[in-house]
């Protein structure tokens, strides 16, 4: 227990932790503030104005359409070729429809908490995860690098306990931060929605779904922090974790993308890590294969492949367990000098 408290204190004392925390809070605050300006509460007058504008544009389009037909028919009467210029049948088939001029398209942007907040949960989780990765990697990496780990092991010669306690201290910190900052983040966007947007249709079910999104976000931040920690411990250097992260990103997002494209693998994106990140946050990710489209038969119905968040959980879980097992295994086995 004393070791756990010590490690929490050590983590809190570190400059990297403090600096990254300031950057994280500033970054999140900036996003929320900037976003609050882009949303605008819709007054009845604004709605009426938008409706008028939509109707006006519809009328203009109709007039223009009729004028074009008249022009075309006149030209046809002179025996000119109208197919190239006006399309078949003088474009009579392209009559503007009212639903092409929906009033809401003419409205200024209004933040809809129910529909859009889940996306901002993902933004938040990604920011905290980045924080966790860097702080977690440097927490153990710098410790290895400067001999602090060796010093500590002279006091507590149980290697696995020491590494495990450090990891626990890190995860506790990331957990606490995610919960506290997540609550502030939700409050901020709720405020934006109620002041300058819409909080309509927020039923208990919606809140529950948002709660689940939050839980998955929390899981993601803890996972990324733990993986950063494990990689840095494996390489005994902070840079090792950052390098591995860049490497994994390059291989997955660029290398595999190119490889599957060259090999012509169907639904190649299911081998790309970001697909799983996406499906983790949005509950599912749908992949389309447009090669199966028969465009000649009109509208296209491409073949689809669904990646669910449960599949993401398996992929990330395997990665996490692999990294941790490797880190603890080498901690047990390798000489420290």
């Amino acid at each position, binding site marked *: 227990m004393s*070791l756990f408290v010590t490690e929490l204190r050590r983590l809190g*004392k570190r400059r990297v932790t403090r600096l990254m925390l300031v950057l994280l809070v500033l970054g999140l605050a900036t996003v929320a503030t900037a976003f609050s300006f882009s949303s605008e509460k819709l007054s009845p007058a604004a709605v009426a104005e938008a409706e008028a504008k939509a109707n006006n544009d519809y009328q203009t389009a109709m007039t223009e359409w009729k004028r074009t037909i008249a022009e075309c028919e006149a030209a046809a009467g002179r025996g000119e070729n109208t197919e190239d210029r006006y399309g078949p049948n003088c474009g009579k088939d392209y009559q503007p429809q009212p639903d092409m001029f929906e009033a809401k398209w003419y409205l200024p942007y209004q933040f809809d908490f129910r529909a859009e907040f889940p996306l901002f949960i993902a933004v938040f989780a990604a920011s905290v995860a980045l924080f966790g990765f860097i702080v977690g990697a440097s927490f153990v990496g710098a410790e290895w690098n400067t*001999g602090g780990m*060796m*010093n500590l*092991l*002279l*006091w507590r*010669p149980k290697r696995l306990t020491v590494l495990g306690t450090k990891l626990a201290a890190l995860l506790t910190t990331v957990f606490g931060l995610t919960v506290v900052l997540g609550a502030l983040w939700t409050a901020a966007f709720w405020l934006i929605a109620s002041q300058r947007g819409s909080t309509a249709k927020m039923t208990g079910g919606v809140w529950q779904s948002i709660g689940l999104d939050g839980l998955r976000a929390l899981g993601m931040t803890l996972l990324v922090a733990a993986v950063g920690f494990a990689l840095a411990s494996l390489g005994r250097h902070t840079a090792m974790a950052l390098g591995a992260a860049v490497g994994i990103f390059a291989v997955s997002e660029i290398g595999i993308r190119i490889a599957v494209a060259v090999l012509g693998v169907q639904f190649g994106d299911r081998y790309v890590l970001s697909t799983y990140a996406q499906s983790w946050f949005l509950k599912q990710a749908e992949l389309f294969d447009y090669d199966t489209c028969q465009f000649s038969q009109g509208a296209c119905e491409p073949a689809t492949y669904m990646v669910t968040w449960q599949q993401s959980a398996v992929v990330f879980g395997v990665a996490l367990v692999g990294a941790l097992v490797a880190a603890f295994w080498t901690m047990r086995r390798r000489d420290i000098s």
Partner: protein
Amino acid sequence: MSAVLEIEGLRKTYRSRKRGVRHALDGFDMRVEAGQVHGFLGPNGSGKTTTLRTLLGLIRPNGGRMAILGQELPHALPAVAGQVGAIVESPQFFPHFSARDTLGLLAQAGELPRQRVDEVLELVGLRDRAGERVKTYSLGMKQRLAVASALLKNPKLLILDEPANGLDPGGIREMRGLMRDLSENGMTVVLSSHILGEIQLICDSVTIISLGRRVAFGPVEQVLAAHSQGSVRVRLEAVSDLSQAADALTRAGVRVATEPDHLMLSGVDKPATVSRLLAEQGLYVSELTPVAVDLESVFLELTATAPVPGQHRQVDQSAKVDQTGTAGGWGA
């Protein structure tokens, strides 16, 4: 007296794909009695730090037996760790923490009272600079911090790997006094150092290691006596005859070190035999003096690392003893 530290037949082998195997420790033995200040000596790369690291559980031995305070290692290490304070070869500290923070975190991890931190800071003379970041410390200040961290738990066994590294003359003398105080209060100290004058002054006993094996051990006076007995300085009437004399003596089984204007012999029972042996070769002795040796010359002789004019000794060029050769007491 009981042994605080026992090592028997310790082996550590480093394997690398390119350079093959290196036996850093090759059946090493060591024994330190309670309450002693014990010097741990050996040329560069002979295995001192490897021994201490193995003892402290930082590296895994390939064989042998170790015990601290009667408890078998590495099994009982967690149990005895609280009674062993150690610094291993210029330890490093997290550069952005102050000395007080560094020690405070260690004390907390070891469940020690906070005032102990200030006590040891006072002891090593860092009191007034304890709030500054370690990054800004000089070499000697870092070394003092290291000693402070080893003293923090008020250990029964204190292991110091080159603690004098970077200390100023005042600091070295202070360290000497500190060691003496500590051992008078019942602490056992193992001290690895290359400053043999210092070792001779403060140590009760020594272990000398060369190429991973023990070449000599025992109380300092005994090690010295064992090797000063047969030490004789020989001068000849003609300096040019020195090499011929060295050959003759070596053939007769005398250990010879050639100096520019004289020979140093060791393992000589009766000096008279030397003059007779040389006279038989037609060489005439102008001086034949038994010499009292200091630890440094014993060390150089035992480890065979005395500089030879015109040669550049490489590391790992030092005395190699047979596995059985160490069994017979002090000195091989």
